[in-house]
């Protein structure tokens, strides 16, 4: 039994928002311009992104709405109707509702009856968990089709009012502001089937390695700004108190971030050692971290170790579509396939690094033609 990616889809809300426009839209914290924006944007290289909120901070599309749109787009060309899908496997960092699971909301939006449902919880790598659950479900023979839907609506976290409620301009540090200039909204979907159809992608394997046992939290929401306070957001008497303490801000420990690159390399080296991954046979590498993070010394070392992937094989649409967390890899795969650069026999390596508490996922695909 094999599993194939037979269709993909993506949805990006509203028009692209440029670097010049984004602060106007998200709002000036205490009416003041950010001191860090240019520096952070220069480092991540993003030029445009999309937001599911407007300048008055009304939500134009809910997170589930975006997932539904991406799924519909994915199913447009599919050879089975939406109501025949056997499994719906969803991922998001934060649903519109705290509970129930995001998958329930997407299912309702799509109107798929009697489906086997899965929602994975995490950040970027939750997409890989959702894919792997779906792939395995098909491999054991429980279902013959699975729709994977990943969506993110992080812009709601970046409204200036969030930061003002947590102390305002003077109290917001680099770690609290970092992701404001990094993350944006969008959704992606893929249809997995046990039956290949036309030109499609055979799923060779999906693997991941998590290192939460070794490292502290690097990206998260829930801890207050005061590092000596060990409470998390629900430990406060009211949510207002938690917000005032900064426990609802999304933060990145930038100092720990470089570990994600090393661990990304470590995982790839493990897969090489296991004989699962042959770097020399990879035709395309899709990664929502841009290649310049892997340059310098570690890149040179990989070259010397015969495990480097030449620059021309890297593909990313991070710079124009933004970093949409768990949706990124599917939005990227969708656009890459639309460009029709992949030929039958080509192999794709998808790398999904998550800095949350360091989980790196890898997916290996081969283009086949029926």
């Amino acid at each position, binding site marked *: 039994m094999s599993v194939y990616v037979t269709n993909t889809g993506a949805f990006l809300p509203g028009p692209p928002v440029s670097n010049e426009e984004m602060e106007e839209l998200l709002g000036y914290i205490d009416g003041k311009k950010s001191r860090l924006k240019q520096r952070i944007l220069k480092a991540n290289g993003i030029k445009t992104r999309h937001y599911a909120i407007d300048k008055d901070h009304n939500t134009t599309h809910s997170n589930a709405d975006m997932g539904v749109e991406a799924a519909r787009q994915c199913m447009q060309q599919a050879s089975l109707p939406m109501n025949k899908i056997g499994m719906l496997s969803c991922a998001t960092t934060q649903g519109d509702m705290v509970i129930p699971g995001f998958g329930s909301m997407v299912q309702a939006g799509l109107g798929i009856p009697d489906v086997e449902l899965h929602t994975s919880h995490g950040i970027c790598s939750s997409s890989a968990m959702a894919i792997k659950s779906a792939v395995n479900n098909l491999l054991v023979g429980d279902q013959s089709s699975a729709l994977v839907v990943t969506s993110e609506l992080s812009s709601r976290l970046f409204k200036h009012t969030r930061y003002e409620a947590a102390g305002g301009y003077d109290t917001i540090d680099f770690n609290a502001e970092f992701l404001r200039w990094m993350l944006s909204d969008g959704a992606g979907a893929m249809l997995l089937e046990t039956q290949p159809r036309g030109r499609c992608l055979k799923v060779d394997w999906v693997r991941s390695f998590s290192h939460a046992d*070794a*490292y*502290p939290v690097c990206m998260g929401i829930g801890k207050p700004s005061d*590092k000596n306070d060990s409470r998390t957001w629900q430990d406060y008497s009211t949510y207002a108190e938690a917000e005032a303490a900064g426990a609802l801000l999304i933060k990145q420990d930038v100092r720990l971030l470089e570990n994600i690159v090393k*661990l990304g390399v470590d995982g790839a*080296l493990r897969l*090489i*050692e296991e004989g699962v991954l042959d770097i020399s046979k990879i035709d395309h590498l899709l990664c929502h971290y841009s290649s310049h993070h892997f340059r310098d010394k570690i890149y040179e*070392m990989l070259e010397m*170790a015969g495990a480097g992937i030449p620059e021309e094989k890297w593909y990313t649409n991070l710079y124009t579509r933004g970093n949409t967390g768990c949706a990124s890899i599917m939005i990227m795969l969708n656009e890459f396939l639309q460009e029709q650069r992949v030929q039958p026999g080509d192999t794709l390596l998808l790398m999904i690094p998550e800095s949350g508490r360091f989980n790196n996922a890898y997916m290996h695909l081969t283009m086949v033609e029926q």
Partner: protein
Amino acid sequence: MSEALQIERPDVLTELGQETLRRLMRSWFDFERRLSRVNIINRLDVGSFTIEDYRSLLLNLRPQVIEGGRWISRCASSFDREHADVRSVVIGHAKDEHRDYEVLEQDYVAAGGKIDVIQQQPRNPGTEALHAFLMYRASQPNPADLLGAMWIIEGLGEKMANDWADRIDELTNGNGSYTKFMRYHGDNDDSHMDKLYGLIDRVCNDVQAADDIVRTADVVGRLYTMQLEEIDYVDE
């Protein structure tokens, strides 16, 4: 007097050399994860590291830094004439580092410690194990596997210089005046790597040699970790 024999950086490593480098990289990443699990290093990561922690760290590093000069010298003398080029590299290395501990002692005093305390501090159990293992390996004929030890210990030197020193100053309100030992190791990154590639190419001639290098890297990583774990059990 003739020039010291040189080991040149190769353009490309052999297949075995490439595999060994990949295994060494994995050994290093494993070591970094082990370090992160050690209490005192976790405190550095989460931001609760204090000046007392820093003094304990220096106190426990000094004996191994002193021994460092000894095992490298022993290692050099264990290479026969067939390995004169390797011996040259190792001798150069021993000369570079054999008085590092003096800088470390000055840092300890600048960080508020007393010189007689650090000078009388015995080796902790992890240091004992690390030193014993290194001296044992260095006493074997042509101990090329110590390339694995060099990989871990030099890697740690760079990590201290590029990461720990700034973090320690940040958390203890320092201005660099007591993190000189750690910062000293950040120089010459490129030449260190060229030397490493050259040595892999030179000594990694068969699978046994490759396995020995990686095993020594693994063991040194574990024993170094043990040395740092012991810090939380040693009184200043």
